[in-house]
């Protein structure tokens, strides 16, 4: 029965993603107005607090607010840092970790509403034969150039600027700068039918710049997601935040060495984050900071037991040749669906590509 409803891990993940999209965007409609207060305001997914219908808030909101309103301002008042000032931040991190402990970075690949939306757009792109842009196999260069961006956003927009605003160094409009540029804020509120967050503040230059950046990013991602898999996830500060704790969660990706590793590279082709290390490395290095634990690499690995999704000692899913054959018959590793395709036929190889 389970195999009929969820014949593949991908189908199961899509079901979870759609369910969590409803919970994170419209949750209060089903379980009461105050659910967000009850579920948590420290979720490891971009569930936006500006969405007044959602079921929980992202951990980046309290982090910015506490650094701005509590720690920064308290340091100015008291000229010292005490435990009571830091305690709320520690509490937020503790609540975050309580959630994170269970699912780890699967919050990115299975729960995050913006991740789900990008993935759905990517499916539309594949269906309509829009060419997929991705890094050349084995090329670490472009991936490594992008990777520091998410850390810089986390450090600058989530930690530093809110603290400096609390200290009175930067203007108040920079109190929660990450939320002001976050495209999930616009995407999720638009899904509830509200255009409030799409409108940008024009009465304050700083807010205009931040709001304009958010809208530009949102527009860019909506279109880019048709051609690039998970474009925003690559620079998402929550992915960086989750990476900080990824080794502390029992939920993880485990890869052992196989003689074909580094040559077949199907796992990297399947990876929506284009992580080259998954095909080239094994052990800790294979579970990269960009991994969202979506499990596609394990689905498309043709070797029995080489890649596994594990929770502690439990193996939740393991690669197998039989599963690979079943999977590849319906969908290519890059997400191109066979045989149904709208609008255009599959691209033919360029003469020089042979």
């Amino acid at each position, binding site marked *: 029965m389970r195999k009929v409803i969820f014949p593949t891990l991908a189908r199961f993940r899509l079901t979870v993603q759609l369910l969590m999209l409803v919970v994170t965007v419209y949750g209060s409609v089903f379980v009461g107005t105050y659910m967000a207060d009850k579920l948590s305001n420290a979720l490891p997914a971009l569930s936006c607090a500006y969405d007044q219908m959602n079921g929980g808030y992202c951990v980046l909101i309290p982090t910015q607010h506490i650094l701005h309103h509590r720690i920064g301002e308290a340091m100015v008042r008291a000229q010292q840092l005490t435990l009571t000032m830091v305690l709320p931040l520690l509490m937020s991190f503790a609540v975050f970790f309580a959630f994170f402990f269970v699912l780890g970075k699967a919050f990115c690949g299975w729960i995050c509403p913006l991740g789900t939306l990008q993935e759905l757009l990517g499916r539309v792109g594949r269906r309509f034969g829009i060419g997929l842009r991705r890094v050349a196999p084995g090329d670490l260069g472009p991936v490594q150039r992008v990777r520091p961006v998410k850390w810089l956003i986390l450090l600058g927009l989530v930690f530093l600027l809110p603290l400096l605003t609390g200290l009175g160094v930067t203007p108040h409009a920079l109190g929660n700068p990450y939320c002001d540029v976050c495209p999930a804020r616009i995407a999720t509120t638009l899904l509830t039918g509200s255009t409030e967050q799409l*409108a940008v503040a*024009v009465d304050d230059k700083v807010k205009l710049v931040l709001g304009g950046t958010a809208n530009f990013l949102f*527009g860019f991602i909506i279109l880019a997601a048709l051609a690039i898999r998970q474009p925003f996830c690559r620079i998402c500060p929550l992915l960086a935040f989750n990476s900080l704790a990824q080794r502390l969660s029992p939920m993880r990706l485990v890869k052992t060495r196989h003689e074909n590793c580094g040559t077949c590279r199907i796992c990297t082709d399947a990876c929506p984050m284009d992580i080259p290390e998954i095909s080239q490395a094994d052990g800790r290095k294979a579970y990269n900071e960009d991994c969202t634990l979506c499990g596609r690499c394990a689905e498309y690995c043709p070797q029995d037991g080489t890649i596994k999704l594990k929770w502690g000692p439990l193996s939740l899913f393991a690669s197998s040749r039989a599963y690979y054959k079943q999977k590849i018959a319906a969908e290519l590793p890059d997400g191109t669906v066979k045989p149904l395709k709208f609008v255009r036929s599959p691209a033919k190889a360029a003469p020089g590509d042979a």
Partner: protein
Amino acid sequence: MRRTILFFIAGLLVGPVTAQHDHSAAPTVAWTQQPLLLPETGRRERDVARLRAVGISAPSVSVHAPAGDPEVRQREFTLSDGTARISSAAPQIGNYHWVVLREASPDSVRIASTAWYFSNPGASPEVLLATPKHELEIVPQPLPREHGQYRESEKWRFLVRLHGQPLVGQRLTLETEFGSRSQFVTDASGVATVLFPRDFPPPPTEQAGGHGRQSAAFVLSSEHAEGGQQYLTAFNLRYGPDAERGRSLGWGAAFGLAGMLAAAPLLRRRQSREVPHA
């Protein structure tokens, strides 16, 4: 500035009238005669609130928590010089607390009520609101969530009940700090849908540097006579300006379209090669 002067003049005019009122001992505000529980200005503390009684006299204020043991569910805080310093009973007891000031005489009961958000995770206020706490009540259906607030041009529902029973056809009056006054009537389920007036003045040219959202006070009040008793109840809180004031949807859409234009070349690239895994 002009508004401040107008309020000052209005205060001078209203002053003599309120001085003749029964509750002359309690201070009043210029924009309403209803009893209020107003937060004191000044530095705010996380776990403590200072509330000032306006237009009503009582020895203590009752604070109802959304959860906890019976002894902490309702606590009394003495008023000193018309001000009470209230606090949450315990951590993790819930955000919203219901605060009540009750003034009773042989033939009348006057109530001032408000809700206070303590940033104290725990139980939601559903049970707190559903439980009758005094005779005539105005109950928000629901209270705004964290990061939300009542805002001008929005409609919010309020239940009016007496001794726990909904009052049908009951008149409810809304007054705001900016001088608006409107009336609403409860439906068959005792609920009135209240439209918050669009009455915020244009923001000052020089933006104040402080933080905290711009907001103003409002009070909803209702009167009812039954069994020889006159009941008056008031619920006051704050509301904010329309979220789209000072914002431009056109500019927002323009920035979004610019982003899409920037991404458009990505779609024009040649299609990816078929990967020969099948």
